[in-house]
Every structure is written in C-alpha cells, then in structure tokens.
C-alpha cells in the first residue's frame, strides 16, 4: 500500500519537473531559435570557410591553411593589423584614464552634475554619420577650419591636414574615438564609484591618508572589478573598429588607404568587394584569436590579483 503511494508521489514529482522544463524551454525558444540559427551557426561556419576557397557562387574547396598564409603575405592585411593594434594601444588607455577621471569629477557634489553627465554621454548615443560629418568640417585640412584656426591663432602651431594626411590620420581617428566613447565608460565607472562604501574613506582619513593616498589605496583597488570589465569591453570594441575609420578616412568611393585601413575593413573588402570569402573568414578568425587572447590575459591577471 505505502509502496504504491510512494511511486505515485514520485510519478507526480517527475511529471511536475517535466512540466516545468517544458515551460522553461518555451521561455527560451523565441530567442534561442533565432540565436542558434543566425548567430551560433554562422560562427561555426566562419571557422569552416576560413579553410576553404570560396567565391560565394561556385562550390567550396578545402585548401588547408593557405588562406592564412596568403593574407599574411598581403600588404593591406598586414597594414590593417598594424593600424588596428596602434589604434587599440592608444585608444584603450586614454579612454580608460579619461573615463575614470570624469567619473571621479562627476561623482563630486557639484552644481550642474546631472547636466554634465548627460552631456558627456551625448556623443555616445549620437549617430556616427552625423558626428563624423561635423568632425570632418571642424578638422578640415583647409586652413579656415575652426580647429586649424585654433592651432594657428591660439597655440601658434602649424595647421594640420588631420585625416587627410597619412601621418595624422590615426591621431584624428583616435581623438574622435575617445571623444565619442568615453561617456559610456564613464557611466560604468560612476556606477562602480557609487558602490564604494563611505566607511572605507572615513577609515582611511582617520589613519591620516590624504586625498591622493585615499585615491591610491581605496578608490583604485575598490574599482578593480570595474576596471577589469571596462578594459575588456573597451579592447574588444577597439578591435572591432570600422565605421569610424570609414567615415573619417574613407575616400568618396569608400575605399580606405593603407595608412588607415583596419582589420574589419579588410574583412569587408575581401568579402564584399573581392568575393574572396575564404580569406575574409581567415582574417576574421585572426580578429577572433586576438580578442580571445587579450580577454584570456585580462582574466588571468584578474585571477592572479584576486588570489594575492
């Protein structure tokens, strides 16, 4: 008697569990179906195509590593790799430092704080085509441009050709990128700052720490998780750079020359202008590998710190 009752209870439990799983799958399905078909699938495909020769129409042909060998012997690919590295190497630390500085500044109790927070975030939400159009006019290579006028009359420097000259094109792109994106990272830092307990600062003050010491020994360590998060997102975003370069340095036909070409533009060009899909995917895999390695290094550093 008690035996059958037990199995009955067990059966009910299992039925309930199965029902809950079905409900759970119904919650996930709408997103997961789209995600699996249009994101997971293509990601796997990218790894396959990187080892194929394919023009998009004729059947694929397996060619082993030859796509990788080809791209590394191509001038435009090597330049794009170099430019992307230079861009990231400067943009990441400058953006990080300014975002932190701004967050600290705008975390003070000062007048107009909310207005300034909003204003700093404006460039991030503003559409790229519109703001790059303005930048191209402000930083016009002509002497009459407002920035060149400032250079001549206030700083007493020679006017610059900005995005129009190979020497200054990356500088212009980096300045623009910092201006456009620092507001976003500032908001993340603001959130991090607001999570630091006031007690820590009070304790440090009681121990006789001055403002600089409080910053060094309280703020910086407490912001460690935020900095970790920001630096990863920022680095990944830097390696994805494309549209900024396209708008600021692309010619009227949209072609970017050697001094400013970046990885994603190279992928775009190989795929949709030259229809060398194998080489495009091989460069995409290189992009992925770089992002992965950097992320792993950052994770490793974070873990070491946490273990100390």
């Amino acid at each position, binding site marked *: 008697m008690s035996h059958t009752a037990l199995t009955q209870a067990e059966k009910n439990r299992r039925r309930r569990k199965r029902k809950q799983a079905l409900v759970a799958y119904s919650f996930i399905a709408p997103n997961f179906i789209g995600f699996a078909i249009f994101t997971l699938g293509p990601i796997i495909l*990218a790894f396959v195509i990187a080892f194929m020769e394919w023009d998009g129409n004729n059947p694929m042909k397996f060619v082993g590593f030859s796509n990788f060998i080809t791209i590394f012997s191509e001038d435009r690919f090597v330049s794009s790799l170099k430019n992307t590295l230079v861009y990231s190497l400067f943009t990441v630390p400058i953006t990080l430092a300014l975002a932190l500085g701004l967050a600290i500044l705008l975390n003070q109790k000062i007048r107009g704080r909310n207005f300034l927070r909003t204003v700093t975030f404006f460039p991030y939400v503003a559409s790229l085509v519109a703001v790059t159009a303005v930048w191209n006019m402000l930083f016009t290579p002509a002497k009459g441009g407002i920035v060149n006028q400032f250079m001549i009359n206030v700083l007493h420097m020679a006017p610059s050709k900005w995005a129009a000259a190979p020497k200054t094109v990356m500088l212009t792109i980096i300045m623009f990128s910092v201006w456009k994106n620092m507001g976003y990272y500032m908001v993340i830092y603001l959130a991090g700052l607001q999570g630091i307990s006031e007690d820590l600062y009070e304790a440090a003050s009681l121990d006789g720490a001055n403002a600089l010491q409080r910053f060094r020994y309280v703020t910086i360590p407490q912001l460690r998780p935020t900095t970790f998060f920001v630096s990863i997102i920022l680095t990944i975003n830097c390696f994805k750079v494309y549209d900024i370069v396209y708008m600021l340095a692309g010619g009227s036909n949209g072609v970017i020359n050697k001094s400013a070409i970046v990885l994603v533009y190279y992928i775009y060009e190989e795929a949709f202008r030259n229809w060398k899909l194998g080489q*495009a995917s091989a460069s995409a895999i290189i*992009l992925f590998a770089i992002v992965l390695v950097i992320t792993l290094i950052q994770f490793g550093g974070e873990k070491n710190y946490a273990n100390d």
Partner: protein
Amino acid sequence: MKSKTANRRLGMAVVYILLALLAFIMLIPFVWMLSASLKYNKDIFVIPFKWLPADPQFRNYVDIWTKIPLARFTMNTVKLTVIVTFLQLFTSSFAAYAFSKLQFRGRNVLFLAYVATIAVPWQVYMVPQFMFMRSLGLADTHLAIIILQAFSAFGVFLMRQFYEGIPDSLCEAARIDGMSEYQIYAKIMLPLSKPALSTLIIFTFVNTWNDFLGPLIYLTSESKKTLQIGLKMFISQYSAEYGLIMAASVLSLIPVLTVFLLLQKYFVAGITTGAVKG
C-alpha cells in the same frame, strides 16, 4: 585653518574650470552643427566664426527633404528600430526569466553558449551570416536586418543579471498563490525590471538606429536604405552642401537623443547590473 579653506576654494575653482572645459569639448560639435545648419554654404568657413548667423537659413531644413528621399529613409529606420527593439526586449526578457528562475536540464550549457558569443564580435561571423541569409533569399530585405539585430546574446545576459538580483522567494510565493510562470513573468518580473528594460531599450534603439555596417552590406536598393546609409550617400554625393548636410545630421540625431533623455534616469542603474555583477 585659513589656508585650508583657501586651498579648498582653489580646488573647487580648478574643478569648475575643468567642468566648463569638458562641457565645451563635448558640446561644441553639436553647437557647430546647429549653427552650420542655419547658414549658407559660403558662410560656414568664414572667419571670424559667427555662432548665430544674422539671417538664419531655415530653408536647409525644408530643402533636404526634396534633395534626398529623407522621408523614406526615416520611415525605414523607424520601422526597423521599433520592430527590433520590441523583439529584442520581448525575447531577451522572456528567455532570461527561464535562465534565472526556472530549473531545467541544459540550463548552464545553454547560458554558457550565450555568454561565450558575447566575446565573439559580430564582424567575425558577418560574412558567413550574410551568405546564409542570401541563400535564404533575404539579401536586400528589411527582414534580414531585423533578424540580425533582434536576438542578441547581450540582451539575454543583461536581463538575466538583473533578474538574479530579484529574490526567488518572490516567485515561490506567487507559485503558491497559483500563478503560472507566464503570469509571474508578466505581472511580477517585468514591472520590477524597469531599469534593465530601459537600458536595453536605449542600447537596442541606439544600435539599430545608428547601425551602419549591417545595412551597408545587406541593403542595396535605394528605397530600402536606412537614414545612416542615406545620409552617408548624400554626404559623398554633395560634399560641398555643408548647410544641408548639417541640417540632415541634426534631424537624424533628434530621435535617439529623445529616447535617451526620456529613459536616462533608469540608465545608470541598468548599466550597473551588467557591469558589476558580470
């Protein structure tokens, strides 16, 4: 004591100077844009620079609609942005509920798949994705852009992180009261997750509205193009029509800035969930 207050005053003065400089650098391109949009082309680069032209050319804002099919571009962009934002919000918050509040087999593996793809830039798989969409006959359709943007892993991740902060006991109590999971989602979770939803709206809206590479690859016929592509096309064709370019730019900024200003009070709270607990 006296020198301390003097120091403090000096410090505050430095802070305010820095802030003024910040506001100036952040705002000057926008102010310049507005100012140039009201000028004749020949007056834009005249020195000394006039912030407010003597006779503002509001004509630029009228002419731009006939120079390019701006109304069509705007309609296309509004349509895409609204559909994508709605789909993204619905499917992400729906899936995130299961990942956070329900038990089922394969939960961790599936969630890991989502998290792992956040680290894979779209640019890595845009080529095979395009070839796949083309084979489905979706090249040069708005549907392709919608599919491209609507199922992001980021949305699921953000919503799930936020739900993790809502106590399970709330759901348990509702279950005992006889509510179904769907009711708990709709009546308890959604109203509680306004900050996360607002953040997701801002991100999705801004990303879709401003997206350039996606429409550039997919949309080839002019009648289907979006505002960003159309604007860029106009800039390449009429690069000397500064006044018109600036007027069009101002117009293209208004919707995103409006959405941002309306939702920004929830924004910092929403971003925090993604960042700090991540």
